[in-house]
C-alpha cells in the first residue's frame, strides 16, 4: 500500500510549520527525509500518525491507499495507528514503558488490533524478537527495558512497531541515540525488514551518511518545504538544489 502526502500544511500557534509537503512512500522502498532541525521532518512523520502537538492544525491530504488519514475521526485513526502505520522513535530509553515487561509492550497492541488471545500474542512476540535478532527470545520476553542495551532496546522498539504487520513504518532518527557500531546493525535490520516484508519506510534522519546507506529515495526539507526529491545517488552526488549542496558541503571529510 502506498502512502502519499500531498500539500500537507501544519499550523501551530499561528506559525506555519509545514508549508505544503509532498511525499510518496512505496512498498519495499526506504524514503529518506533529511534537513536541519526545525525544518519540519519530525512534524511530517507525526502528522501521518495524527500525533501532532496539541493545538496544531493540519490541512492537505495524507492518503493511505484510498483513505485520507487527515479526514479520519479519532476512532478510525486508532485502527490505523499502530496497526497499518507504525512508528519507531529516536530514543528507545524513553519510547518504552520502563515498568512493563517487553512482552506486555509487544503483545498489548497485537491483542487489540489483531484480536489475538494471550497465548497466540505471546507466540508471535517471541517470533518477532527472533526476527529482530534478540538472543534467547523465550527468556528475553519477560524482562524489562532497562535490562537491555541501547541497541537491543531499539531492536525491540522495531519489533513492537512491526508486531501488527504494518504497511508503513515511520522511523524518526532511529539510530541517532546509538553507538556507530550498533547503528550499523540496526540499519541492516531496517533495510532487511523493508525488503523482506515489503514495508514502505519513511526514514527521518539528519545524518546524510545513514541516508546514503539505506534510503532509496531522498527528500530534503528546509523551512517546512521539500526542496528536493530524487533517487539517492542523484541527490547525494549531484544535487540540483543549492541547499542540498550546502548541506553536503558542510560535512567534514573527503567526501565533498
Amino acid at each position, binding site marked *: 500500500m502506498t502512502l502519499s502526502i500531498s500539500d500537507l500544511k501544519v499550523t501551530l500557534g499561528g506559525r506555519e510549520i509545514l508549508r505544503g509537503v509532498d511525499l510518496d512512500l512505496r512498498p519495499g522502498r526506504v524514503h529518506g527525509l533529511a534537513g536541519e532541525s526545525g525544518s519540519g521532518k519530525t512534524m511530517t512523520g507525526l502528522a501521518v500518525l495524527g500525533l501532532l502537538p496539541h493545538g496544531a492544525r493540519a490541512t492537505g491530504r495524507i492518503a493511505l491507499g484510498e483513505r485520507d488519514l487527515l479526514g479520519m475521526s479519532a476512532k478510525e485513526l486508532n485502527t490505523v495507528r499502530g496497526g497499518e502505520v507504525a512508528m519507531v522513535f529516536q530514543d528507545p530509553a524513553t519510547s518504552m514503558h520502563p515498568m512493563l515487561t517487553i512482552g506486555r509492550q509487544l503483545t498489548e497492541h497485537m491483542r487489540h488490533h489483531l484480536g489475538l488471545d494471550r497465548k497466540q500474542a505471546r507466540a508471535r512476540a517471541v517470533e518477532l524478537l527472533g526476527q529482530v535478532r534478540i538472543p534467547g527470545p523465550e527468556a528475553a520476553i519477560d524482562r524489562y527495558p532497562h535490562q537491555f542495551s541501547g541497541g537491543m532496546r531499539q531492536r525491540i522498539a522495531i519489533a513492537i512497531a512491526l508486531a501488527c504487520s504494518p504497511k508503513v513504518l515511520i522511523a524518526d532518527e532511529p539510530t541517532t541515540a546509538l553507538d*556507530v557500531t550498533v547503528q550499523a546493525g540496526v540499519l541492516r535490520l531496517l533495510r532487511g525488514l523493508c525488503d523482506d516484508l515489503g514495508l514502505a519506510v519513511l526514514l527521518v534522519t539528519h545524518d546524510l551518511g*545513514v541516508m*546514503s*546507506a539505506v534510503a532509496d529515495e531522498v527528500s530534503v526539507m528546509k523551512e517546512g518545504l521539500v526542496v528536493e526529491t530524487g533517487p*539517492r545517488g542523484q541527490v547525494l552526488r549531484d544535487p540540483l538544489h543549492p541547499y542540498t549542496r550546502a548541506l*553536503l558541503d558542510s560535512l*567534514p571529510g573527503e567526501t565533498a
Partner: protein
Amino acid sequence: MTDSTTTTAPVTERATLLSVDDLVVEHRTPGRPLVRAVAGASLTVAAGEVVGLVGESGCGKSTLARAVCGLNRAASGTITFGGHPVTPLGLRRRDRALSGIQMVFQDPYSSLNPRRKVGAQIADGLRTAGDTTTSPADLLERVGLPRDFAGRHPHEFSGGQRQRIAIARALAARPSLLIGDEPISALDASAQAQVARLMRDLAVDSGAGLLFISHDLSVVRLIADRIAVMYLGKIVEIGRTEEVWTDPRHPYTRALLGAIPAPDGAGVLPAELPGDVPDPADPPQGCRFHPRCPVAMDVCREREPDFGPVACWLHEPA
C-alpha cells in the same frame, strides 16, 4: 564551513596540565560482582590542547572523566592536575588549585538547577574564581546568547541553549581544564557540531585544555587535536587526530571508523562489528577485544597487550 582551521592547530610541545596514570576505578554494588569500569588507563592533556575520548557506551569514558573531577574515587593509579594530586570531592570546600577543573555534563536538563535563575547559577562560577569584574551577562554573550537571558529560568530554553548556559557556568570559574562528558549527545543533531566547536574555541582561546568525551567520532574529529580510543576500561589507541582518522591501527579503531556510513550516495551498508561490549565485571582473558576481533591471534587470547600508543599485539613496540 571547513575543519581545516581547527584540526591543523600548530604542533608545539606544551606543558602537561592533566596526567592520568594507570588509573583504575571500581564500582561496588552490594550483591553484585565488582565492576572495573576503568582498568588501567593513562592519558595526558596539555594546556591549550583538545583531547577527544571516544568509545562505545559502557566502555568507561564517563567514569574516567568523573574520576578526573574527583567525583569517582580511584582504586589505584594517580591523577595529577597542574602538579597537584586530584583528591575525591568531599563535603568541605574544594582545594582552590583543583577548582581549575570544570565539567560540562551530558544532560543540560538535569545539570542546571530548575529553580534558580540562569544568571545566579553562572554567578556561582564567578564567585569560585573570585572574579568581581565579569558579569553573568558577559559570559552569556561569550557563548552566543543574548545578555538579558540571565534573568530567566532554565525551563525557558531549548536543549542547545541550556548546554550553552552550562558551558558559560563552567567557564565562569576560569578553568584551566574543561571536561565535557558527552556534552552534545542530548542535543539536536544540528546543534551538536555548533556546541562542540564553541567548546573548543572557548577553551583554546582562554589557553585551557579540553577533554572532550563523546561516542560520536565524526564530531570529535572536527575539534580534537588528539584522539584516545577506549574499549572496556582501557585506552587501546591514542594519537594525533589525522593519523588516527586516516590510518587507524588498532582493529577496534578500524571497526569504529568503518561503521560510520559515508554520504556518497552509493547505498553501501556500513560494516557491523559483531557482538556486544563484554560485561566489564567479567572481562575476557588476554586482550579485551579478542572475542570481537577479526584478526585475533593465539597470543591475544593469553596475554593482555599493555603498551601504547596502540595496545595491540600487531603493533607491539620493538
